[in-house]
């Protein structure tokens, strides 16, 4: 039984925290938050590349470190804790995973080294409007290698170089690689709940598109990529949830009302205990997801769903009750509580809302029963 980070993984995690403590402080996050023209922290992005994190899970043959997914989870946890304002998830959890899952040898050889080297920002575009995109309402389409349609929202779409797009080709849904520097692409940055992560509307009018994976597999591949991303996102959510618990505890210990620290009141103690319980259950589910992702287990779909549901709800609860524990101060822009309140929503929505994953989880349970 070895259901935890190994010593090496803990060392890597510690190094990551040290790096982010220096290079991703609240001041760094707020620089992006308060400057509408900044989509991300370019210095941090460079630094993260230099640390080799972008290629942590990319095979050495493609310029990566060839570490396991668990190591990537450890890094993700620290990025979430630091509320890092960079396109790490879009590039690594979505684009790189999509390429490693469905890319041809040529596509892997062409793009993975660039990702590992930090020379490329990625994005993953499925949504076209409110609600979940599905076979019935998918509008984007490719013909003759040209993509037409509108994708909104596309996380990091305004700064990405390469985007994976879900679109129909001859009536068959597929995934397509599109270089955004090319012709037929217009992008517009959008205002969102979490200004520390950038989102765009991208309009394609005959943009060059190359298929990624088999024709007709668009939705199946999207789900497979989301499964992988969900596990990695869950660790960012865990890092954020634990940080919220720390903030709430530190504030409560130091805040006095009626002659004693508010941390001594049962209402606060039980609130923090509730946060702790949710965080620990989420961590256990996330670890199982990490194991399934790392060994490519058949349990990945249900493990990913459980990890995403548990972590999304833990982070939501921790981030909102952290504000509440801070009282009036927590409602101010100056205090960091809202950074995590915002990020908890960004992470809960970016790979599809928890309710979607609950449905997927139950479908997996039904398959298991049928089997």
């Amino acid at each position, binding site marked *: 039984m070895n259901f935890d980070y190994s010593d090496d993984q803990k060392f890597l995690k510690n190094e990551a925290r040290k790096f982010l403590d220096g290079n991703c402080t609240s001041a760094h996050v707020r620089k992006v938050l308060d400057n509408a023209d900044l989509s991300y922290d370019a210095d941090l992005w460079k630094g993260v590349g230099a640390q080799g994190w972008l290629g942590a899970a990319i095979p050495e043959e493609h310029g990566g470190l060839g570490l396991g997914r668990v190591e990537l989870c450890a890094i993700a946890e620290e990025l979430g804790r630091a509320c890092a304002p960079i396109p790490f998830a879009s590039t690594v959890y979505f684009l790189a995973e999509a390429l490693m899952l469905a890319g041809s040898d040529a596509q892997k050889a062409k793009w993975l080294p660039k990702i590992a080297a930090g020379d490329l920002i990625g994005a993953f575009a499925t949504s076209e409007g409110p*609600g*979940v995109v599905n076979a019935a309402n998918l509008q984007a389409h490719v013909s003759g290698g040209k993509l037409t349609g509108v994708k909104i929202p596309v996380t990091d779409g305004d700064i990405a170089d390469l985007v994976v797009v879900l679109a129909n080709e001859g009536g068959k849904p597929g995934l397509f690689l599109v270089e955004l520097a090319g012709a037929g692409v217009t992008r517009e940055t959008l205002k969102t709940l979490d200004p520390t992560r950038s989102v765009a509307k991208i309009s394609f009018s005959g943009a060059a598109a190359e298929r990624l994976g088999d024709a007709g597999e668009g939705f199946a591949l999207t789900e497979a990529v989301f499964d992988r991303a969900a596990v990695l996102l869950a660790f960012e959510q865990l890092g954020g949830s634990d940080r919220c618990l720390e903030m709430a505890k530190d504030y409560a210990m130091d805040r*006095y*009302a*009626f*002659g004693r620290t508010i941390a001594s009141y049962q209402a606060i103690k039980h609130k923090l205990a509730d946060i702790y319980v949710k965080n620990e259950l989420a961590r256990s589910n996330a670890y199982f997801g990490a194991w399934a992702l790392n060994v490519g287990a058949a349990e990945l779909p249900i493990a990913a769903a459980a990890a995403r549901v548990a972590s999304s709800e833990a982070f939501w609860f921790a981030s909102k009750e952290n504000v*509440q524990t801070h009282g*009036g101060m927590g*409602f101010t822009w*100056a205090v960091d509580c809202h950074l995590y309140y915002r990020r908890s929503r960004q992470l809960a929505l970016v790979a599809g809302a928890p309710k979607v994953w609950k449905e997927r989880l139950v479908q997996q349970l039904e398959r298991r029963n049928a089997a």
Partner: protein
Amino acid sequence: MDFNDSPEEAAFRIEVRTWLEANAPKKVDTKKMSEPEILKLAKAWQATKAADRFTCMTWPEALGGRGATPIQNVIYNQEESKFDVPRGFFDIGLGMCVPTVMAFANDETKQRFVAPAVRGEEIWCQLFSEPSAGSDVAGLRTRAVKDGDDWVINGQKVWTSGAHYCDFGILLVRTNLDVPKHKGLTMFWIDMKDPGVEVRPIHQMSGGSNFNEVYFTDLRVNDSQRLGAVGEGWKVALVTLMNERLAVGGSTGPNYAEIMALARSTVTEDGNALSNDAFREKLADWYVQAEGLKLTRFRTMTALSRGQTPGPESSIGKIISANQLQDLSNSAIELEDQFGIITDTAIAPLEAAFQQSLMWAPGLRIAGGTDEILKNIIAERVLGLPGDVRVDKDVAFKDMPTGR
């Protein structure tokens, strides 16, 4: 068990409605107006109301009221709410501050201040809360030191609504550090335009700035501005706070009807999101809560109309409405799925109403009493359960442990 006015109430309602139809200003689109412009309209409307005694109605005639009953007051507000008149600038001043002045100031001061406030010519704000004294207001630290006939005041207040447009305020300060915290407080009225007073807006997590910080630097106030005796400030403050519940609360933002519309307009594989049973059960819960609150207000009105005084059960309102707003707003953005992150009012459904209320709801759970304080109030004042252990009752303020 009915919703009808008594004959007297019905007659008064008609009188009110007739007057409003004759006097209420025409609807104007305030969306594009600046606050000073809106304030100008509000002052004009307040003057009109004052002239015919449709403001401060429950006050005695001598003070500008008409000795109306509480239920008559409710009836007026119900009817006025059907008109699109400027609101909100005078509630705290006339609801909390001026009544305190009326209760504790000398005749000369009352002569000077009550009438202009009723006419809306002068606006009052309430200066109690401090960064280190939120739920525990009596723990405030702003100091007033006697200097001849004056008091010299230094310190900071926070969460002051309208401080930037107010003319006067009632200010609670500490005048004695050597006695337990409740015993060392004194109340004054102050001129908000005094150079010793600096007002700074608070930038909220929701982006807006509905409240202010107010700093006092060697502010001199004459002892004649004192309200109540030295050291009796807490008793005075309780008179002010008694009325707070009336001023705060009530759900602000989208409700079950809006999210029902959102669901109906959200396309899914098998129709629209309104057909999802999980959503339908939540919708029923929100409806039952919202209706329950509305109907509880009717029960409160019934008590008023029977000449009874409604208890603190009105504290229920904000606990429920604030938490429902947060839950409902979050369910709405999750319903929009990835699209829910967008706050562009031109793009997001319902002009991003749900995204805005999601960011506002946390403040609603805190302002005017946190969830936790309100539950204490229900437990102690409604259910009669004992207070928590108090370690600060008999300790000199200067010896009390403090944190940030």
